[in-house]
C-alpha cells in the first residue's frame, strides 16, 4: 500500500513537472492560432476537412493559390497558358523553389506528387479536383498504371490535358489536396511534413498544438513572424477565455456572445462576408416536397430576416440565390421570396394541402447555431400548416441519411472549396452530384444540368458569369431549398496583431504578413 502510494505520487510529480506548455510563452515574434479539432494528417492527399486543409496550406504550396479575398494568384507556377480551346493548361514553374529539406522543385516532382494523390494506395478519398485530367479517374480506380494527361515539358513546365474544357481548372490546383509534396515523399509525410510552404513544420502534439517556424528561404519571402503556434481548442467559450487572457492572436467570436463582444471590444472586431451559404435542403423527390408550390410556400412562410437577426446574431446577408455576393454571377438585386404567410397558405392549398403537411427536419448537435436556426424554422412553419418534427442526429448519421435521400429537410451550410460560382452550382444543383456529390436536395432539371455543364466549358469569363446568373435565377424560382443566408465571419484580432485579415475561403490565409507590433504604434515592416 505504501509502496503503491509512493510510486503514484512519484509518477504524478514526474509527469507534471516536465516542461512548460507551448501556450505559456508570449514572445512578440510568435503568433497563435487555433483549430477546433486535431487535423487528420498533414499529408495534402488526406486534406478532406477544414483543419487539415488549413494546416496543409501553411506547410505546402500548390501550383496556384488564393489570397485572403480569394483571388487566384500564381504560386509554384508563376504563370500558365491555356491551349486547345481550354482543354490544355501549361504551367511554368518557378525555378527558385526548394522544399524545407533543401531539395529542388522540378516538374517531375509535381507530376509524381499529383499521381500519389490519385493513387488508390494513398486512400485519400478526395482526388476529384484532379479528375478533369485525362486518364486520372482510371488511374484512381486502379484501371490504369499512369495518367497520360499530366506531362513534364522540359525542365520547368507541366502540362495538363483535360477530358473537356474546364475554365475553373487553375482554381482546382489551389486546393490543399493538390498541394505539392516531395517525390518520393519522406517516410512519414502525414506526421512530419516537408513542403515548400511559408511555414516549416516543427512539432505536433496531437489534440494539443502544432508548432511551425518560418521558412526563411520561402520563394514568396519569409513570414514576418518567427513562429506560428496552432492550438487545438474544441470549446468555443474556452477559446474566448484564451483570447481574453491574451494567449490567442485571433478568435472567431462565439455566436452566443456576438452582442457582448460588439459592445465590449468593438475596436478588436473585424467582419467579412464568407464564401459560404446556409440553407435547408428540401428533398425534391420526396412526398409533398415534390411540388414546387410547397417548396415556395416554405420560402414564404419563414421570416428569414428575423431569424438571422435574432438567432444568428445578424451575422449574415440574406440569400436570394446560392451564389455568395462576393462571387461574379451572384445577383443581389434579385426579387426574393418575401415573408408572406397568407401567400404560403394559398400556395399550399393550391398544391392540394389545405389541411397542412407533416415533415421532418434533421439537425445535428455539433453545429449548435444551425440547430437553433432549425428550431426557429420549425416554429415559423407551424402557423401556415407545415408541422415539422425536429430530428436530432449526430453529424455522421445525419450526413448518411441526407446522402441517401432518406430525409425531408436537412439544415446545412456549404463552404467554398474554390472561389467560383461553379462551386455553388455544380455540386449543389447538378443532377450528377446527387447525394455525396453535394446535391442533398436531389434537385434535377435537364435545362439546369446542360447550362451548368456549358458554363464549365465556357472560357469567356463574361459569358460564363452571365450563365451563372441565369442558372441561379432558374434554380431559385424552383425553390429546391429554403434559402437562408450567406454568413459574415466575425473575428476578434488582438490589438498588437498586424497584417492578418479574415480569409473568405478557408485556405486563403497563409499567415505570411501577420506579425505583432506595439498596440499603439504600428511597427514598420523591416527591410
Amino acid at each position, binding site marked *: *500500500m505504501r509502496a503503491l502510494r509512493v510510486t*503514484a505520487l512519484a*509518477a*504524478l510529480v514526474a*509527469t*507534471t*513537472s516536465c*516542461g*512548460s*506548455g507551448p*501556450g*505559456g510563452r508570449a514572445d512578440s515574434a510568435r503568433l497563435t492560432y487555433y483549430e477546433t*479539432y*486535431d487535423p*487528420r*494528417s498533414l499529408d495534402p492527399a*488526406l486534406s*478532406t476537412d477544414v483543419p487539415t486543409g488549413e494546416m496543409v496550406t501553411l506547410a505546402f504550396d500548390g501550383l496556384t493559390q488564393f489570397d485572403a479575398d480569394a483571388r487566384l494568384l500564381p504560386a509554384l507556377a508563376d504563370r500558365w497558358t491555356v491551349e486547345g480551346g481550354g482543354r490544355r493548361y501549361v504551367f511554368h514553374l518557378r525555378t527558385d523553389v526548394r522544399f524545407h529539406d533543401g531539395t529542388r522543385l522540378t516538374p517531375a516532382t509535381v507530376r509524381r506528387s499529383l499521381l500519389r494523390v490519385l493513387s*488508390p494506395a494513398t*486512400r485519400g*478519398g*478526395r*482526388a*476529384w479536383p484532379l*479528375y478533369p485530367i485525362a486518364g486520372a479517374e482510371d488511374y484512381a*480506380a*486502379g484501371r490504369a498504371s499512369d495518367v497520360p494527361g499530366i506531362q513534364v515539358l522540359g525542365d520547368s513546365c507541366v502540362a495538363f490535358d483535360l477530358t473537356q474544357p474546364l475554365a475553373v481548372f487553375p482554381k482546382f490546383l489551389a486546393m490543399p489536396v493538390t498541394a505539392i509534396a516531395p517525390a518520393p515523399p519522406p517516410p512519414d509525410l*502525414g*506526421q512530419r511534413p516537408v513542403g515548400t510552404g511559408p511555414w516549416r513544420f516543427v512539432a505536433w*502534439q*496531437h*489534440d*494539443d*498544438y502544432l508548432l511551425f517556424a518560418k521558412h526563411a528561404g520561402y520563394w514568396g519571402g519569409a513570414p514576418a513572424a518567427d513562429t506560428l503556434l496552432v*492550438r*487545438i*481548442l*474544441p*470549446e468555443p*467559450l*474556452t477559446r474566448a*477565455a*484564451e483570447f481574453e*487572457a491574451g*494567449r490567442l492572436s485571433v478568435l472567431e467570436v462565439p455566436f452566443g456572445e456576438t452582442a457582448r463582444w460588439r459592445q465590449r471590444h468593438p475596436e478588436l472586431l473585424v467582419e467579412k462576408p464568407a464564401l459560404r451559404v446556409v440553407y435547408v435542403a428540401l428533398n425534391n423527390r420526396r412526398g409533398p416536397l415534390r411540388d414546387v408550390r410547397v417548396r415556395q410556400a416554405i420560402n414564404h412562410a419563414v421570416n428569414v430576416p428575423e431569424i438571422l437577426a435574432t438567432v444568428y446574431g445578424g451575422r449574415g446577408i440574406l440569400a436570394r440565390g446560392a451564389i455568395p455576393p462576393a462571387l461574379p454571377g451572384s445577383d443581389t438585386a434579385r426579387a426574393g421570396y418575401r415573408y408572406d404567410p397568407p401567400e404560403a397558405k394559398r400556395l399550399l392549398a393550391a398544391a392540394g394541402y389545405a389541411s397542412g403537411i407533416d415533415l421532418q427536419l434533421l439537425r445535428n448537435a*455539433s453545429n449548435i447555431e444551425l440547430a437553433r436556426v432549425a428550431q426557429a424554422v420549425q416554429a415559423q412553419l407551424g402557423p401556415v400548416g407545415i408541422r415539422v418534427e425536429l430530428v436530432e442526429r*449526430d453529424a*455522421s*448519421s445525419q450526413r*448518411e*441519411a441526407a*446522402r441517401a435521400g432518406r430525409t425531408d429537410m436537412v439544415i446545412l451550410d*456549404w463552404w467554398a*472549396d474554390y472561389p467560383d460560382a461553379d462551386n455553388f452550382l455544380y*455540386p449543389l444543383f447538378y443532377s450528377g*452530384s446527387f*447525394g*455525396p*456529390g*453535394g446535391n442533398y436536395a436531389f434537385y434535377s432539371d435537364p435545362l439546369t444540368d446542360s447550362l451548368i455543364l456549358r458554363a464549365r466549358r465556357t472560357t469567356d469569363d463574361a459569358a460564363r458569369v452571365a450563365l451563372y446568373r441565369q442558372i441561379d435565377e432558374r434554380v431559385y424560382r424552383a425553390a429546391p431549398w429554403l434559402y437562408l443566408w450567406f454568413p459574415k465571419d466575425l473575428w476578434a484580432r488582438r490589438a498588437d496583431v498586424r497584417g492578418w485579415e479574415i480569409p473568405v475561403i478557408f485556405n486563403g490565409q497563409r499567415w505570411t504578413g501577420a506579425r505583432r507590433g506595439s498596440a499603439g504604434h504600428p511597427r514598420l515592416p523591416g527591410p
Partner: protein
Amino acid sequence: MIRLIGRRVLLTVPTLLGVLVVAFLLLQVAPGDPVTAMVGERADSATIARLRAELHLDDPLPVRFGHYVWGVVRGNLGRSYITQRPIAQDLRERFPKTAQLALAAMALAAACGITLGVLSAVRPGGAFDRLAMLASYVGVSFPVYWVGLLLILLFAVALRWLPPAGSGGLAYLVLPAVTLGMRSIAFLARMTRAAMLDVLSSDFIRTARAKGLSEGRVVLRHGFRNALIPVITVLGLDTGNYLTGSILTETIFGWPGLGRYVLAAIEKRDLPAVQGSILFMSLVFVAVNLVTDLCYAKADPRIAYD
C-alpha cells in the same frame, strides 16, 4: 495473493472478449459511416465504393470480427481509418495525459474528501459538519461543464493566475484537476462521514476510549482504519472512471487525453480507433479493480479471497 492475481488475470480474457463483441456489434448497429468522414463534404460514389471495399467494410460481419480479433491477438490494434496512424501509438500518446489528470484529481479528492469526512464525523451535527456537508452537497450537484467554465473565467480571465486551457506544466493541471476532482471530493466526504459514524458507534471504539487512548488515536487508528472499505470502493471506482478519460473536462480545458480521442473517433465512426480505445479502457478498468481488491485485503485482513 499470487493465486488471487493469477485468477483475476485469467478472468480478464473472457471479459475483454465480451467487451470486444459488444463494442463491435454496437458500432455496426449505429448509423453513420467511416467513409463519409474520409471523403469529406463532396465525393463521388465510385470513390466511396472503392474505399469501402479497401477497408473490407462490405465483408460479412463474422469475417470482419475474426480479422479484428486475430489482429488484437497478435498485439496489433490496427490503424485509424481517418488519420492512418497506428491506434496503439495514439493511445500511448494520450494515456499519460489522462493518467496525469486522473491521478491529480484523485490525489486532491482523497486528501480533501477524506479529511472533510473524518472531521465531520468527529462532531456530527456540529458547525463544521453542517458546513462541510452543505459544501459537498453543492459539489455533487454542480455540473462539471459549468464549474469548469466558471473556474476559467475567475482564475484565468479575471485574475490571470492560471492558464485557461492546454497542457504543460503544473499550472495547466490545477483547474482541470479541481473540476474533475470536485465531485469525488464531495462524494468521498459524504461516504467517509457515513462510514466513520457507523464505526465510531461500535463497541471496540468504546473499548478503545475506555483504555484511555487519546481521541486522535481512537478516531484515526481504530475508527478510520475500519471505515476504509467503502472509501476504497469509491476511490477505486472514480480512479477507474478518470483513467479511462473524462470527455467534458478534457473538452473544456483542451486537455489532450483519451476522452477526446474516443469522442472524435466515435463521431467519425473510426471503427478501429473506437474498438482499440474501448479494449484499452477495459484493460485499465480491470487493472484498477484488481488493485482495489488488493487494497481491500490489505485494509481488512479478514477479507479472504480464497
